[in-house]
């Protein structure tokens, strides 16, 4: 086994709200290996973004109330704010669904892309800008030297996402977290950006966490995937195995509920009945049990831990842990 680059151990992040405590991340554990692209998939509100933000210590107003984030021998939940700022500038970068939220509308694009180099490497403006222009060219911005003088609103959505990726890469970080980087884009532009991320991963060896709700994107981008439901990891494993024989009923049902472009015949979709739960008031036991077609009595009583099921997968399910195969009409 290779030494993991990043290890998230039993992470808990909560938000205090009027309705009560939102357990946005409720005991999440996973590893990121050097150079790999790991997918995190799950529905809206299941805690994907808060997990990513907690790793970067940007979860405020949320609070990390338990667990560790181990990176290069240190626990990131314990380092000082100054140290964390430096790690964010040099070693880890994050890109978001809407690049406009992280680009400043009043500064020229090149200046912003060069910022991490000025701030964290102490480069002078000219040297930093030259490097930023080079990086803009490498992520596919045509006439990069000229476009570097433009403001963010002068770029299209796809181009802005390229700018964000360039900004993240200037300091050649070890970890890149991409939170739904293509959700706001058209499919043809999504294909361009995914292609760029593949290329970046190959060329720079950057380990990438790709957050998405699109199972197709995971299938095309990630060797390994973790599936989240209601703030917890319910399944993890190699993408090939998880898609070929899911070991958690949520993954199993989700895969059958989505239409496939390459379907030969029209078959009715098999929806997951019911609604995703409220994170303020989680169902007892396995949070998926009210919607689960396989549940047994124990599921509503005890919370299942994430355990090995089969040779390569982990699943948090009493039924599959007991050896039952998931199948059905």
């Amino acid at each position: 086994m290779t030494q993991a680059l990043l290890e998230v151990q039993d992470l808990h992040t909560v938000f205090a709200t009027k309705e009560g405590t939102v357990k946005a991340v409720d005991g999440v554990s996973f590893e990121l290996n050097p150079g790999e692209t790991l997918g995190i998939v799950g529905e809206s509100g299941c805690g994907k973004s808060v997990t990513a933000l907690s790793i970067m210590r940007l979860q405020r107003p949320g609070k990390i109330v338990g667990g560790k984030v181990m990176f290069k021998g240190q626990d990131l939940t314990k380092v000082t704010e100054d140290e964390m700022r430096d790690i964010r500038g040099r070693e880890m970068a994050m890109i978001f669904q809407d690049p406009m939220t992280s680009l400043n509308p009043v500064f020229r694009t090149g200046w912003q892309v060069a910022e991490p180099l000025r701030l964290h490497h102490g480069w002078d403006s000219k040297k930093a800008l030259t490097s930023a222009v080079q990086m803009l060219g490498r992520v596919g911005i045509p006439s990069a030297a000229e476009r570097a003088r433009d403001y963010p609103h002068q770029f299209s959505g796809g181009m802005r996402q390229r700018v964000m990726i360039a900004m993240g890469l200037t300091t050649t970080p070890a970890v890149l977290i991409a939170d739904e980087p293509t959700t706001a884009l058209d499919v043809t532009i999504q294909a361009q950006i995914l292609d760029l991320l593949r290329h970046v991963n190959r060329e720079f060896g950057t380990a990438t966490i790709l957050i998405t709700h699109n199972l197709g994107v995971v299938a095309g981008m990630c060797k390994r995937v973790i599936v989240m439901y209601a703030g917890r990891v319910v399944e993890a494993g190699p993408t090939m195995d998880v898609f070929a024989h899911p070991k958690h009923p949520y993954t199993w049902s989700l895969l059958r509920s989505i239409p496939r472009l390459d379907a030969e015949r029209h078959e009715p979709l098999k929806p997951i009945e019911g609604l995703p739960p409220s994170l303020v008031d989680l169902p007892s036991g396995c949070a998926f049990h009210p919607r689960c077609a396989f549940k047994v009595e124990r599921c509503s009583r005890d919370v299942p831990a994430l355990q090995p099921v089969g040779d390569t997968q982990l699943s948090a399910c009493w039924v599959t842990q007991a050896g039952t195969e998931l199948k059905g009409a």
Partner: protein
Amino acid sequence: MSSRGPLGEAAKTLTRAWTTADPLVSVSDLKVWFPVSSGILQRTIAHVHAVDGVDLEIKTGETVGLVGESGCGKSTLGRAAIRLLEPTAGKILFKGDDITHLRGERLRALRRDMAMIFQDPYASLDPRQTVGDIVGEPIDIHHLAKGKERQDRIREMLRVVGLNPRFVDRYPHEFSGGQRQRVGIARALAVEPSFIVCDEPISALDVSIQAQIINLLERLQSKFNLTYLFIAHDLSVVKHISNRIAVMYLGKIMEVAGGTQLYKRPRHPYTGSLLSAIPIPDPVVETRRERLILQGDVASPVNPPSGCRFRTRCPRAREHCAEEVPPLEEYGDEHKAACFYPLD
């Protein structure tokens, strides 16, 4: 199903009475342009060519899917087809009647036969109205029922879309996204329309909820013999629900074909790239797939490229593509594409 148009004496273009064997909706050379104004006098300096010469027929009981990138004119075409917008040019026939420039009372009568389901179940429902008011409003507008009969009809509509009829006095904020979309569908069905434009009806919903709504729309279609124009940017969903698919690019239809035919044998280079860009939730398929990645962004609809609008991004474009607009040509069995150098 009635064979009489809703408009009585409205201009007939068929020499005989319309029947369900004729297209329910027939759009020809349709244009919808929006003015772009500038300066203190707000003079019109140009136009957004949102829909720019579209021909499309929709048969009774079928679902036509409409796909394309954002801003290509899908919603505008859908809104014009049910006359929520007045077209700039061209013609729309509904049940054989010319409804292109209908006004006043006759337009109001037409509204009984057509409805729209919107993308955003949050924005499209009035937060101050109860679910009963929301579903009841079109019933009142068209004087379809009063008193107890009206209440029964509202409850029946809620039941049909899978909501508990006891919810009539609740407000939209008390529901989830999927439930709100059901309320929107109940409202659309309340007038018993024959034609519904579904504009991205599932895009705002959770993945696990989308299949519930797709199945509901399919069930309602066969129950009430509905005809759908189903707009979405997700080609997998469109292929699942549609009999035929129209691919739109910058205000024009580039290709129309049955779903399987379109997937197996796209003729237009844009369709080819679009299909190649759709991720398939199967890592075995994905790793083997050849990717045709389109370069660049969509051109501006204010000043669309001459000739074929796709030529600025088209990997097959040649000189001729800039000189002439390629017409929609037949490729057998209800398959049409507009390209001088089609894929084979």
